[in-house]
């Protein structure tokens, strides 16, 4: 930001205009996070509708056609407009602070990315307003179901355009993150002093760069098939429907790692702070992230085992191998906690919840990577249970950890601990009640994407339990919303470093000024804020004043910058 302050105040702008036109990475980050939660709320309400319909055999609330639209939009919103953009929101808001930058490398491009994402989501949802309804071919949009023959409505076209927009937004964002990390690190911030979250943003951006264009190309060809008589995915013209699956999953599988790696980064930030120890095996954690990302480019066809057109041993082996670096990360988090002085704050509780829940999801993923099991479980509720297990137990739990952790930094206010603990408890319980029965349903052969099922197959009770669990999750969200509402009504009173944390974002005020840093502490290790706090404490002790609490913050250290 190269504005020159000559003592003349900028003309006052209304706060609405400021938000609409901002190029400040923190504001854009907050808008990303808020919009992502908005889409999650809509996707979540749709999920409740789906679960209510499935609570008992027979059709109660929605007909089969509407049901198809509901699960399609639910999946699209949750994956592409919530889980991904939430991570991009954190990356926007936090990453430049962590490397001591004043803003992103291309602030205006950053604003463009946000608006493309927002309108992409609105365009997908606007399908509900068309006569044919929204897209109904599933979030995977498999050909030929997505062709003009089987999905003639405008909803499918709106889906294509919306997803293409968020794809372009992701690529532009990834370029921006990578250049920012390359070029705007503060003096002393070497690559191997970067916090884990920044590392995961860098690696995730690389994945986005390689994976997203594949879906853009596929969507372009689908659009040509639908409107200009092309034959790419049309077998009657000699096209190849499995080609769509290849192009989709070449995007789709790296995408699920795009949806988890930044959240691994969040866990790697939160656990050391509340364990009172440095992150165990930092370099191995970095290598594990790079290993996961590399392997993830070679596993896409494990979604296509049952097409009979893929090399089963290769894709099975690659998928199984991913469990190794992921396991390294899980054990390193546990080793970080080992013999630490644990503080069970709300962000830390989400991390501990993740260690249990995500690991179960990871194990069911290893099961699905084995072709014999996959042949049986393909398109059953076992897959539904697995993907929600990793996406809620991984992405959402870590997302909430990040929200509770960085809320003071972004707003200057702290979320209520009591409400946060209720929120956490209801979600851990609600998660298990919702999704463990779905593993049972899958093992009993209940297919996914059906609006109704016959009674008397033993599917009634697990479905009912699962629906009750979904309602627990919905109720469990209310304490969170209440905590946010109550916090925002209070004045901003949080110090720069309310947690006694390590990385650079805690060296500036909460919320940070527009230019981020009035002063930077010296960066001589992975934990510059910790170093400064220790130095200040040593100085106080030398003067015989005794140690200060963990919230004294680096302000007491004086102008060592």
């Amino acid at each position, binding site marked *: 930001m190269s504005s020159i*302050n000559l003592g003349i105040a900028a003309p006052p702008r209304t706060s609405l205009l400021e938000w609409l036109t901002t190029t400040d990475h923190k504001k854009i980050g907050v808008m990303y996070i808020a919009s992502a939660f908005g889409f999650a709320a809509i996707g979540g309400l749709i999920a409740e509708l789906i679960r209510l319909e499935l609570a008992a055999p027979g059709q109660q609330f929605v007909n089969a056609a509407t049901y198809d639209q509901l699960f399609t939009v639910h999946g699209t919103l949750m994956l592409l407009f919530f889980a991904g953009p939430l991570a991009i929101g954190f990356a926007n808001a936090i990453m430049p602070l962590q490397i001591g930058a004043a803003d992103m490398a291309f602030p205006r491009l950053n604003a463009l990315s946000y608006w493309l994402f927002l309108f992409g989501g609105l365009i997908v949802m606007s399908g509900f307003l068309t006569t044919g309804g929204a897209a109904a071919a599933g979030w995977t949009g498999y050909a030929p179901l997505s062709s003009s023959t089987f999905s003639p409505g405008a909803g499918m076209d709106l889906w294509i355009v919306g997803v293409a927009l968020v794809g372009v937004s992701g690529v532009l964002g990834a*370029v921006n993150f990578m*250049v920012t990390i*390359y070029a705007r690190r503060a003096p002393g911030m070497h690559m191997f002093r970067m916090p884990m979250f920044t590392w995961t943003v860098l690696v995730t951006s690389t994945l986005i760069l390689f994976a997203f264009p*594949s879906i853009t190309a596929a969507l372009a060809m689908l659009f040509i098939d639908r409107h200009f*008589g092309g034959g790419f995915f049309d077998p009657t013209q000699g*096209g190849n429907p499995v080609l769509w699956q290849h192009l989709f999953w070449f995007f789709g599988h790296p995408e699920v790692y795009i949806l988890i790696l930044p959240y691994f980064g969040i866990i790697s930030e939160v656990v050391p702070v509340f364990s009172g120890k440095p992150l165990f095996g930092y370099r191995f954690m970095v290598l594990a992230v790079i290993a996961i990302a590399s392997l993830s480019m070679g596993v896409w066809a494990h979604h296509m085992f049952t097409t009979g057109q893929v090399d089963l041993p290769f894709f099975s082996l690659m998928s199984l191998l991913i469990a190794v670096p992921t396991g390294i990360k899980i054990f390193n988090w546990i080793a970080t906690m080992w013999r630490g002085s644990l503080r069970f704050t709300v962000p830390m509780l989400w991390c501990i919840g993740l260690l249990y829940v995500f690991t179960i999801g990871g194990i069911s993923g290893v099961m699905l990577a084995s072709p014999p099991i996959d042949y049986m479980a393909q398109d059953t509720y076992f897959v539904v249970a697995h993907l929600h297990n990793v996406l809620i137990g991984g992405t959402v739990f870590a997302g909430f950890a990040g929200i509770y952790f960085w809320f003071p930094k972004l707003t200057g206010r702290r979320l209520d601990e009591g409400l946060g603990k209720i929120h956490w408890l209801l979600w851990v319980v609600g998660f298990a009640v919702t999704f463990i029965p779905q593993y049972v349903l899958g093992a009993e052969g209940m297919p996914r994407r059906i609006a109704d099922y016959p009674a008397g197959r033993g599917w009634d009770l697990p479905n009912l339990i699962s629906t009750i669990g979904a309602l627990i999750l919905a109720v469990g969200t209310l304490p969170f919303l209440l905590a946010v509402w109550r916090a925002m009504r209070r004045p901003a009173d949080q110090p720069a470093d309310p947690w006694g944390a390590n990385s650079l974002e805690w060296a500036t005020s909460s919320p940070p000024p527009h230019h981020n840093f009035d002063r930077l502490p010296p960066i001589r290790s992975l934990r510059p804020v910790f170093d400064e706090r220790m130095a200040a404490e040593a100085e106080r002790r030398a003067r015989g004043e005794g140690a200060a609490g963990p919230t004294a913050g680096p302000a007491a250290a004086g102008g060592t910058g």
Partner: protein
Amino acid sequence: MSADATVLPAAAGRVKTASHPARGLGNPVLGMLLFITSEVMFFAGLFAAYFSIRAGHTEVINGVATHVWPPTQDVGILNPWRLTTESGALNLIVPATVILILSSFVCQWGVLAIRRGDQRTFVRAISLTFVMGVAFLLLQAYDYTVLMHEGVTLSTGLFGSTYFTLTGFHGLHVLGGTLMLAAVAYRGRAGQFNARRHDMVEAVSLYWHFVDVVWIVLFSVLYLV
């Protein structure tokens, strides 16, 4: 850089944050290289579709399913070395290719000029590159009209679908490139670039070389192999 430092207590001093690296690639150049990476993957997706369809295309010849490409109905349409097409129209795809390849050299001539600080040559070279880009687009439009006249469109089978999709997306990228070149030429005329500050020129030239390379691959795959 951060002039807000003027309103801080004097003791706080100036904050050292980086806006660009002291040496190495400039931000626009690195950003463009990364963007080109994603563009390579985009074209890789289109090429993957093309090769998959081409490899899977069979026709029944003498009662036996045989792999042929191009499809029998489209055989003979794409011969770059003939002066006229089947309908007798001029075949200008080789001149178009030559113009695009030469434009990359002209573009680089302009980049070398601005590196020395020679603004006159720079503006001339970039303007010429722009004109050559537009000429390529016009020739491609002409090529499309000829093909459509001979009955090949997006919807006349796999050959038309793949041909127009691949060349069409390449054409859109050339169009984007010419717009960037126009912006560079306009800013160059206004004297906004010099030997030290011309990152945008470098970035745009990289993009132009990229669309050129894509065309070389595309031409080879569609017309020669």
